[in-house]
């Protein structure tokens, strides 16, 4: 897998809606809360809608990818999910449940496409469409994607220094410590300890703590709760 680092950083900054900051250990300017974005989008603010899209599109894309749909079907599901959210905005009582609602809607609409294709086709004795439809236990798949989403949110809570270091350490192909040291202007010897602190900061982030508190994993993967 290729992890174009510059691209990731760019995407992260874009997704956060916050420009680069020079701050050392200072946390980034707080991002708008989901509640604020939903409120603004309800009032017709297209920029707030775009910010919601940027925040949740990787999650929706990952959920759809797991279903191995044709490109056309995957595009249709993606479009349907966002149109549904547009029509659902006024009814969304708990904006914080939005990741779960989106993941569940994407999966349900994806499964609908699979069933329709299966019906449209003559009976396939191999049953390939269903056999390859999913990688693993469906509830677990959603939990994993929601966990990934929480991790991305957590990254945005880190200080610029910590986030930059983690992204450099994740680069593929990997960068040498010399490289990383030069890019960040920190001594090689402090990379290890800084990584440890960054991961601690990640673990204690609001995004991961609230994931631990009210993730669906704790409710036996009962995703129905997200659907109204």
């Amino acid at each position, binding site marked *: 897998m290729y992890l174009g680092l510059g691209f990731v950083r760019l995407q992260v900054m874009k997704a956060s809606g916050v420009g680069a900051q020079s701050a050392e250990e200072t946390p980034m300017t707080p991002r708008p809360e989901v509640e604020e974005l939903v409120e603004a989008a309800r009032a*017709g603010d297209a920029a707030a809608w775009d910010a919601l899209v940027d925040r949740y599109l*990787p999650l929706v894309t990952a959920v759809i990818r797991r279903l191995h749909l044709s490109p056309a079907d995957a595009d249709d599901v993606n*479009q349907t999910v*966002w*149109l549904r959210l547009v029509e659902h905005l006024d009814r969304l009582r708990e904006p914080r449940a939005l990741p779960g609602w989106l993941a569940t809607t994407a999966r349900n609409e994806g499964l609908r496409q699979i069933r329709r294709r299966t019906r449209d086709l003559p009976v396939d004795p191999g049953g390939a469409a269903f056999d390859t439809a999913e990688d693993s236990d469906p509830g677990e798949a959603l*939990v994993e994607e929601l966990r990934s989403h929480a*991790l991305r949110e957590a990254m945005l809570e880190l200080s610029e220094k910590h986030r930059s270091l983690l992204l450099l350490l994740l680069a593929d192909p990997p960068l040498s410590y010399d490289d990383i040291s030069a890019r960040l202007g920190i001594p090689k010897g402090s990379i290890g300890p800084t990584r440890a602190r960054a991961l601690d900061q990640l673990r204690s982030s609001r995004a991961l703590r609230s994931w631990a508190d009210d993730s669906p994993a704790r409710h036996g993967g009962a995703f129905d709760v997200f659907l109204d």
Partner: protein
Amino acid sequence: MSSSTDDEGLMEELARAMHEVTEVPDHRREAARAAFTWRTIDEELLALTHDSLELADAAVRGNLDVRTLGFETDGLSLEIEVDGDRVFGQVLDADGNEVVVESVDDGSQTVPVDASGVFSVVVPAGPVRFGVMADGLLRHTPWIVLVAGDQDAR
């Protein structure tokens, strides 16, 4: 996932999570953003009450030809059957109806409805929704895909 308690496990999870950001195709972002233009304020929806696709057990799938769906809100309901790209529908329990089929890619078309609420229309591929005009109010179904795009042609 329990591995996230140690640093290496957490880094692996993080690598996967950040990789997903790079996997979003641009045209999906554009489609998602464009969806906002379909916003209508605080409208009452014709909620989906059933979709024969959801009863996809072997017994039901014996009937391969026709998919049926129902939508309802108080005092108004819409039943449709999908056969290929043609939809046969009936609006029930309301007078003076007019049905609109809306598509993101193909715009909207108004469909005449006969005295008993019956109509027939060819629907475009991709997400569509029906709007039913009754008692001076236009009420929409949720967006739903009835006809799939061609695998290659879109």
